[in-house]
């Protein structure tokens, strides 16, 4: 087994991988940029190396710096987490050349899946159903016109190198095609330095369902069931669950077997995810393969009872899978909420800053994977994902009930988060009925509903008024926590301070 693993990442995923390593008795090397010295993953590591400026290109995306640390520290393997270098074939190759094991698929498998058009071609050969359209980049507007006419409108234009919705255009009618094609090409050029664009039949309000696969280096490949990922904003997943409310055992078997074929067609090893679009008739089409550990992997862990990161490490260590397909069982239901530093009062824009107070949920069926801690300052330089709250239950209703209970326990002070959004989602009748698609969240956010899940009753307002007064009266200086307010209400000093502050703000105006 590996003696020492370098984790080329930060935030909650770095912490999650550190935990797995320590559980397996493996030492951990962390890397950090200048703004991450106080980050949780540095606190928890056995060794920690600074790798430069906050900009990812200077640090977490800098292959040379990371391989230097691997050499200096004597790490014998690297876990890339997700994002950053996790799907970078160049990095995987560089690791191989440096004699450090990359915990993930081979560079060749990444290349096969890296370009959506090349992936589509491979899948056609493997007989995997994908959305009708071109498997090659469009040579001309004329070709686009012909294909679109053939497969029928609406159609979707997509960048071959695409991701995160960049270089994508939905086209309802021939008239829109020309400008859409130009727009998609230039955006793809700008975003990925590659203007290749292809066309697909547009599936309206589809579900986004993905299948977890695991392949060892001895030719064994299994699927671990699906994840329902239809709740998205700006093409970013917000809530994921396993199993999907619409997938029955037979459909699971079919999708799973297709996913295994996809993985095998690419000579895939280690953990990977095959994404499908599912239409209203439950037809599923191959979308793409993510050649890394997914953010939402915990929901699969909870319903299968497995630890995917442990398994990734065992596989990378050359061990065969410790179980066969028929030993994999789905039990219960799990739902994940991605806690972001986002401001619900301001269109969910990022809200970095110092965490002044942190109340943490726990108890039955609650798992919390987090990269934050009270007193830490969330840097403004990276993705705003702070933590993941995952609820498990005997069935979907219990999982929802436990998550709502836990969300009410969760509180992050000093910055704004999207915690309240999940209360709205989980209490929404459509969601509770499992009626969700990729358009659900945008529709929900259009609805005017600022009061969380319960309406403001007069008693709650009364409580708010009195609490506001008590906070002012007790002040922040006051009270060894847990002491009786009655017995140590502090003089109005503390309060007046805040009053002066408000006043001062006002003064600023005149």
């Amino acid at each position, binding site marked *: 087994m590996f003696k020492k693993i370098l984790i080329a990442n930060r935030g909650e995923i770095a912490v999650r991988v550190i935990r797995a390593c320590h559980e397996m008795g493996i030492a951990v090397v962390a890397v950090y940029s200048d703004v991450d010295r106080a980050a949780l993953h540095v606190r928890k590591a056995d060794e920690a190396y600074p790798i430069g400026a906050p900009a990812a290109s200077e640090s977490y995306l800098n292959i040379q710096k990371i391989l230097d640390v691997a050499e200096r520290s004597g790490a014998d393997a690297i876990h890339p987490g997700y994002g950053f270098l996790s799907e970078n074939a160049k990095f995987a190759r560089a690791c191989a050349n440096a004699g450090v094991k990359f915990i993930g698929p081979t560079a060749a498998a990444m290349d096969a899946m890296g370009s959506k058009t090349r992936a589509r071609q491979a899948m056609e050969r493997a007989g995997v159903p994908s959305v009708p359209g071109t498997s090659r980049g469009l040579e001309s507007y004329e070709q686009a016109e012909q294909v679109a006419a053939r497969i029928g409108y609406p159609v979707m234009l997509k960048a071959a190198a695409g991701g995160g919705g960049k270089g994508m255009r939905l086209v309802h009618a021939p008239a829109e095609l020309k400008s859409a094609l130009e727009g998609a090409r230039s955006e793809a050029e700008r975003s990925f330095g590659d203007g290749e664009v292809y066309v697909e039949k547009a599936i309206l309000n589809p579900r986004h369902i993905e299948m977890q696969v695991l392949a060892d280096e001895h030719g064994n490949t299994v699927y671990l069931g699906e994840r329902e990922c239809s709740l998205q904003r700006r093409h970013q997943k917000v809530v994921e669950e396993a199993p999907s409310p619409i997938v029955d055992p037979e459909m699971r078997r079919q999708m799973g077997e297709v996913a295994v074929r996809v993985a095998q067609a690419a000579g895939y090893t280690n953990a990977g995810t095959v994404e499908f679009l599912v239409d209203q008739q439950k037809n599923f089409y191959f979308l793409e393969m993510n050649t890394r550990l997914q953010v939402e992997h915990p929901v699969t862990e909870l319903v299968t009872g497995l630890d995917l990161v442990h398994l990734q490490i065992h596989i990378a260590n050359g061990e065969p899978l410790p179980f066969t397909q028929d030993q994999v069982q789905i039990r219960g239901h799990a739902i994940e909420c991605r806690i972001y530093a986002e*401001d619900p009062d301001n269109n969910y824009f990022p809200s970095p800053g110092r965490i002044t107070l942190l109340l943490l949920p726990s108890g039955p069926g609650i798992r919390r994977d987090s990269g934050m801690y009270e007193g830490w300052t969330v840097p403004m330089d990276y993705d705003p994902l702070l933590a993941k709250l995952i609820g498990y239950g005997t069935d979907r209703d219990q999982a929802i009930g436990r998550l709502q209970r836990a969300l009410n326990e969760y509180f992050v002070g000093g910055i704004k988060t999207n915690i309240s959004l999940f209360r709205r989602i989980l209490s929404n009748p459509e969601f509770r009925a499992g009626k969700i698609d990729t358009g659900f969240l945008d529709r929900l956010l259009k609805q005017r509903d600022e*009061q969380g899940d319960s309406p403001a009753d007069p008693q*709650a307002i009364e409580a708010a008024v009195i609490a506001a007064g*008590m906070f002012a009266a007790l002040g922040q200086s006051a009270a060894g926590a847990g002491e009786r*307010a009655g017995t140590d209400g502090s003089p109005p000093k503390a309060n007046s301070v805040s009053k002066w502050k408000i006043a001062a703000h*006002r003064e600023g105006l005149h």
Partner: protein
Amino acid sequence: MTYEISIDGNNHRLDLTQVEGRWTCRLDGREIAMDAVLARPDVLSLRIGNKAYEVKCERVGGEMHLWVGSVRFAAEVRDPRSLRSRMRAADDHGPRKLVAPMPGKVVRVLVSQGAEVEAGAGVLVVEAMKMQNEVKSPKKGTVQKILASEGAAVNAGDVLAIVE
């Protein structure tokens, strides 16, 4: 002491007096039996009669919100003397300040001092975590002051500009 407290824009008058460690409380003139423990700073365990509430205080960039269970209220606490001026600042007449919605970097200033702006028109752009956020004018009027320059780092709540 006496507080003017506004909850989601509605004003209430609260009298709190402490006698031998016990609080007596009058809300808009009504006497209310209550009892409170500050479990942690910004976390209050409140009993009104025998009803129990955990109230959390969210303070970000000068704003204050209260969570009563899972319901959130915008709150402001002030003493009566400053009430009038406050009311004026609040309504649509007089100057309004544009504040940074989050810590970040000012990447663009879209209008110059003295320019006329419509309500909802973008005045500056702030960037953080790879996302750009346009700060819009809350009213039609004249840009009286621009207080931040391009490239400047700002904190949530900082006043960036004032529209008169």
